[in-house]
């Protein structure tokens, strides 16, 4: 809170530097070795992400502030950065199959993901509005390109274009909000804004509205979600998996950090926005998904709904709520990556199938796959004792303790409606006539699915480490 210039040490930024430099080195490698090097580049990119994660963990404990307070490394940042790195690395693994095709040997894909990840890390550590914007754009620009990476596919390019145009609009709103906030508080640092922002100032309220609109766009919260289903459906499936995991973590992380550390005095204002957005997202995510026939579109609405649930924890505005959000993100990433491992593997005769009806009778043709997917779906629906239940449990507990009863009740009801479409897929897999066996599952997909599945299944047995890490992360925000 109390802002003291702590010099310009580069140590806290070391992981980001390593990641950025590594990404450029891999770019060189690819540029000189050509598209043949794609598998190598991807493998090295995964190693690089792992190395970055290790570095992040090995940074000296405690809170480090650098670049004049605009870059913060604390437990919160560490936890979410590691989570984002895991998401990115897993996405790269999920992409191997996509990139394996002769026509799609594009090593730049991995580089773009690395750059996007670097943007996320900056975003998560942002300590002022400028750094926030920098990280957000670094992340997003790479994402626009990645969405359109399947250049010859109309849908993919359409997805990239839509995302870009709407993203630009949201960035405009974000910047407008920032300038309003700067105008009314005279500072861009979160700590300074926190000190200057007064409750009841309409200018600050406007600024918050625009700022949060931009952030809501990134986490695809209603009503700034419209791009999500189209982009999820149009983008190549591994890219969709990426969209659904790491960037969501980063955007939600900065969302939480901004409102909690920059606007603690105007909580009344932002809480209303968050409550509204949370309810709208949960409701839309639950209701709209029912009508979907395409599994990727369904996952899009699912992620909208899940972001709504995560925002319930934020709406509480307490350390407990922040802990709920952090836990929710961790579990959400595991569930999403596991589910996408299944979706990516759904191919018949080399042809990807993405309709829900294509899952018919999977329990008889691929019983293990069906079991893991069913379990992930149960987890997404929030059925105990799977991890997804605890994710919802923590955010709702926080909301109830904060007195947000209406929000909690609405949220629980939405999760009931939402359970329907998850259970519907399980019903299709277990009770419908088989639609034929799917192609064998690749080893890296198996690995991701197994880890995600076992995490979901056994989280309740030994939740201690993750929960205490989340608690520590949340504490560092207050």
């Amino acid at each position, binding site marked *: 809170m109390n802002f003291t210039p702590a010099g310009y040490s580069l140590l806290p930024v070391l992981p980001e530097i390593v990641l950025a430099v590594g990404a450029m080195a891999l770019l060189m490698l690819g540029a000189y070795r050509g598209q043949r090097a794609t598998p190598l580049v991807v493998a090295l990119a995964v190693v690089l992400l792992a190395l970055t994660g290790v570095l992040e963990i090995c940074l000296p404990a405690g809170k480090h502030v650098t670049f004049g307070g605009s870059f913060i490394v604390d437990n919160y940042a560490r936890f979410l950065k590691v989570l984002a790195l895991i998401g990115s690395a897993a996405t790269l693994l999920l992409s191997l199959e996509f990139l394996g095709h002769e026509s799609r040997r594009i090593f730049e894909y991995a580089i773009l993901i690395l750059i996007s990840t670097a943007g996320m890390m900056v975003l998560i550590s942002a300590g002022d509005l400028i750094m926030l914007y920098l990280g957000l754009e670094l992340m997003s620009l790479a994402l626009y390109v990645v969405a359109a990476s399947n250049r010859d596919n109309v849908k993919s390019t359409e997805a990239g274009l*839509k995302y870009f*145009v*709407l993203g630009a*609009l*949201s960035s405009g*709103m974000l910047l407008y909000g920032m300038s309003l906030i700067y105008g009314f508080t005279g500072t861009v640092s979160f700590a300074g804004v926190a000190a200057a922002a007064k409750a*009841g100032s*309409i200018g600050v*309220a*406007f600024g918050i*509205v*625009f700022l949060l*609109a931009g952030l809501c*766009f990134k986490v695809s919260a*209603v*009503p*700034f979600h*419209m*791009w999500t*289903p*189209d982009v999820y459906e149009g983008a190549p499936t591994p890219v969709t998996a990426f969209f659904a995991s790491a960037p969501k973590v980063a955007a939600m992380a900065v969302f939480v950090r901004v409102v909690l550390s920059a606007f603690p005095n105007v909580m*009344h*204002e932002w809480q*209303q*926005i968050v409550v*509204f957005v949370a309810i709208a997202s949960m409701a*839309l995510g639950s*209701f*709209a998904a*029912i*009508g*979907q026939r395409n599994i990727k579109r369904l996952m899009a609405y699912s992620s909208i709904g899940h972001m709504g649930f995560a925002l319930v924890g934020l709406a509480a505005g307490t350390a407990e709520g922040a802990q709920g959000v952090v836990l929710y993100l961790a579990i959400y990433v595991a569930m999403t990556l596991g589910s996408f491992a299944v979706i990516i593997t759904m191919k018949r005769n080399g042809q990807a199938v993405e309709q829900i009806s294509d899952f018919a009778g999977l329990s008889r043709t691929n019983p293990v796959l069906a079991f893991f997917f069913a379990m992930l779906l149960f987890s997404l629906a929030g059925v105990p004792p799977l991890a997804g239940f605890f994710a919802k449990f923590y955010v709702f507990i926080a909301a109830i303790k904060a007195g947000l009863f209406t929000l909690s009740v609405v949220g629980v009801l939405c999760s009931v*409606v939402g359970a*329907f479409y998850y259970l519907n897929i399980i019903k299709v897999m277990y009770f419908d006539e088989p639609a034929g066996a799917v192609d064998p599952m690749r080893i890296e997909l198996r690995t991701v699915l197994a880890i995600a599945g076992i995490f979901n299944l056994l989280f309740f047995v030994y939740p201690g480490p993750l929960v205490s890490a989340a608690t520590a992360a949340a504490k560092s925000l207050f």
Partner: protein
Amino acid sequence: MIQAIVFLPLLGAILAGLIAIAGAHARNPSGDTVEHAHGHGHDDHAHASHAHDDHGHDDHHAPAEPPAAGTGAAELITTALLFVSAALSWITFVNVGFLKQDLLVHVLPWISSGDLQIAWSLRVDTLTAVMLVVVTTVSSLVHLYSVGYMDEDPHRPRFFAYLSLFTFAMLMLVTSDNLVQLFFGWEGVGLASYLLIGFWYQKPSANAAAIKAFVVNRVGDFGFSLGIFAVFMLIGSTDFETIFHAAPGLTGKTINFLGWHADALTLTCLLLFMGAMGKSAQFLLHTWLPDAMEGPTPVSALIHAATMVTAGVFMVARLSPLFELAPNAQAFVMLIGGTTAFFAATIGLVQNDIKRIVAYSTCSQLGYMFVAMGAGAYSVGMFHLFTHAFFKALLFLGSGSVIYAMHHEQDIRNMGGLKDKIPFTYVAMVIGTLALTGFPLTAGYFSKDAIIESAFVAQNPFAFYGFLMTVIAACLTSFYSWRLIFKTFHGRPHDQHHYEAAHEAPLWMLVPLGVLAAGSILAGFPFKELFAGHGIEEFFRESVKMHPHIIEEMHHIPATIAYLPTVMMVVGFVVAWLFYIQRPYLPVELASQHPLLYKFLLNKWYFDELYDVIFVRPAKWLGRFLWKKGDGFVIDGFGPDGVSARVLDVTRNVVRLQTGYLYHYAFVMLIGVAGLITWFMFGLGGQ
């Protein structure tokens, strides 16, 4: 010892039940589907072979499947345990009745909830001892008889388990120390009765009869439970001692019942009596008893003649201290008893199913017992209960023997001349009939005459009505009983084929007949003084509270009145002889000359039809209404179905917003921001 008497049948029931379950498993190891197919197979069989019957037969299934392993063991265990129980009961009877060793054994605390403290106790006084003897004796004989009678049925372990379960529940009922425990036994016998009536569950008619018995008894039990609540409300206890002690203080008190300030004791007794009416098949709630004959005949003998149906009589006797304080309730008891005695006898006149005749006779005799109860001569009623158990069980088991001999033919029009074929059964049935009609010196003679005398001297607004009805019924009883004997055993055989094949039943079945025949003759005279004479004070002591002086006055009635029942009996006999031996065309002519009366009686005073119109159809209509409109339309429509339909509507509309046009998406975002801004600008989101 009393614990052994009560719990040995339970032990037998559990063991036989386990054998039955094991047998069912062995037959259908793979579970449901096979069981289903098997059930259907039976169904078809039953339909095919008995399609010509209008009312279902006491029918055995061809031994298409062998009985389960352990059937013999189940029979042996239950029967042996019941005989032990019966032997101990007679010892108890002597101990309690003559040596005056009343027992009150505390078993365990049962319910402890606030003011409601109920202990599980076994209370044995003379009243209970009489019932113990009746129940265990008849039950053990019926067990023995069933070994022979049921020998073709593959489900015998289940049958014996039910029989023993019934016996346990009945013993629980008669040994209870409080109303709640009594109610437990009461419902337990109801359950066993339901299970046994529906024992041949492949027959739709048996299922229907079982349900009917259960539902009609619910009506009575509803009143009974209200009565128990009323007792608890008034006295704060359900314990008999406490109730009887507190009851005299309640005279003149009123309670508010449906806005009507009723006399507390009268209302309570009427409610309790409503339970008795159901269980003992009294007028208005009698309709289930004839249908209950769908069950196997030994069941009819045990449950629907000798024991369970007398539970209502027992209950009134047990609560005699209450009823003595409620003369209006007593009057009602007398009214219902007299009506039933007459009404059931009239129906019995024209029935053709051998078991139904005996069933209506049972109904009528229960009416006699209630007349005695209404008169305040409780021990006399119990006397008739005691003797009736013997001769009515005998008649049922004898009918069973006839049915067995005739290969499950139950229509007496198809019988005739059987006395040469099955002489032992014939003799037994004649003895039973003599006892039932009150032939001098048989058991029924003493008890029935005592009832008619008690009705004559009773201080009761309906005393004369009761007297008149019972006297007329005595004549009718004699007529229909002898009609049964003549049509079954005398005259020419009507079904030559069955007649030729008729044969005497095995020894298993004849022994119980012999024992019961002996009882039907001997159960009267030795006990006359104890139940209806000067020995009452000594014998019953505190267990029943007699109307003062009634016994004394019974001994001083005019001789004409004393002989009247016997005269009526002779008249009935002569008419029956005339109709069915001397001039067999007379009844046909009579029936054709009075078709209305004949139809009226044949259709059992149209009670079933009446109840169908008044209760069954409205209930079904209400059920259908609530199902279709209430549940289907309102609850499903606005509940699950409606909600899910609305969810789909919402989904459709939301998905429609997702047009795919970029400018729509941008528009939505801007609208969102504009909405939030507006919200804050106009102060709604402000302080």
